[in-house]
């Protein structure tokens, strides 16, 4: 197994080098390091409000914070450092994820006195409002894009949420 301090040093060296892709094999563990050149060379993010013609509305994926990512390959032991992403115990491909489109505050009801839009177990249809994410008075209603049953609500009411954070799991 690769020592975590060794891996950190390796990432540091790799980050400051001109090498873009590197594979290391040590003591039965293989690690591949790849620089995300697309992001480095990308133009500054801009928001386009396309004039009259209907635009496509593709949410961009959550950017990863470092420019270096460690991709575990074969032979990785379960306790390997630097997994490629956060693992949820209940991760299940049969669930449909509803994510936050913006950084903001998560509200389960339209006002403090009102009932929650949905509870665990609520059957929802595509278009039903699930919650509001608010940022600086921009009240963003999040609607379900599928029909199914609310399996999990992953955030407490009035808690901050990050861009692309999973809010609900829907069982289809």
């Amino acid at each position, binding site marked *: 197994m690769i020592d975590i301090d060794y891996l950190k040093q390796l990432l540091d060296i790799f980050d400051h080098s001109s090498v873009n892709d590197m594979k290391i094999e040590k003591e039965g563990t293989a690690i591949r390091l790849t620089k995300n050149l697309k992001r480095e060379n990308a133009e500054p993010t801009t*928001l*386009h*409000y396309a004039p*009259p013609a209907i635009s496509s509305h593709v949410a961009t994926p959550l950017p990863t914070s470092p420019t270096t990512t460690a991709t575990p390959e074969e032979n990785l032991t379960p306790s390997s450092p630097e997994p490629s992403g956060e693992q949820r115990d209940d991760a299940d491909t049969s669930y449909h994820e509803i994510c936050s489109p*913006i950084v903001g505050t998560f509200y389960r009801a339209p006002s403090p006195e009102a009932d929650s839009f949905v509870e665990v177990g609520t059957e929802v249809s595509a278009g039903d409002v699930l919650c509001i994410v*608010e940022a600086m008075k921009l009240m963003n209603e*999040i609607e379900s*894009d599928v029909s199914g049953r609310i399996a999990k609500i992953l955030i407490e009411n009035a808690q901050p949420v990050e861009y692309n954070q999973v809010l609900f799991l829907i069982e289809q």
Partner: protein
Amino acid sequence: MPDLLNQIGSDTTVRDVLADSWGVADLRFYNRTESTQAIARSFADAGASGWTMIVADHQTAGKGRDGNTWISQPGSSVMFSLLLRPERPEALPLLPVRIGLILARTLDDLLISRGASPEDVPFVRLKWPNDLILDNGKIGGILVEGITRGDQQYVIVGIGLNVFRFTDVPPNATSLSLRFFDDYVPNKANRLRVLERLITALREQLRTVPEDLMPREIEEYACRDWLRGRRIVEPLPGRVAGINRKGYLLLENGSDEVETVMAGSIRLM
């Protein structure tokens, strides 16, 4: 010049000419409606294009923030809702601040063109995150509502501006006194002209905007920041120090640290 806003109604020829001149995809006028936000939303759900604009002479249930009602009387205000379909959602939270800057700038120009002294700018200030302030009173407001379904997203920007004085304001309707554009210009204001200036400014200046506020935007906001230096008790107690590049409110709380406020209603001390 007569104020023509309440005469347009369903005149499709005038409507089409205006839509073309203002560069909006579609334009609908209502002499009286419950809420332009609600109409814009129904248009959006039916597949309307971005930059569809809904204008009303009078709203009977106009929406303000936190479920409040936007107060107006027939013939008194400029009120419209704009459907936008942003391609990328990252900068959405900044929309109220950014639109506030564009509107404040445009209203300043209008005031100058109507006789106000350019040396006295800025006239219009911003009360974070969505109020337009003139002479320490509220002259307008911005309400931005977003709807997200999967990877589809649209926003409805609601803008209300008090143009002609009205007196029948319910008690406690706003925490600030109301101000009216017409009181600050020597010649009688014309709502259609005001509307035209506001929408064309939005069309020109909202085309492409970066994800974060640019330094010049932060600088301009600082000049227009009505809350700056004031003490507030909600959502957190402290003295307002400005906003950061994300548009969040910065609060000094007496310690060395500056707190960042992302959401919540402001209550002054």
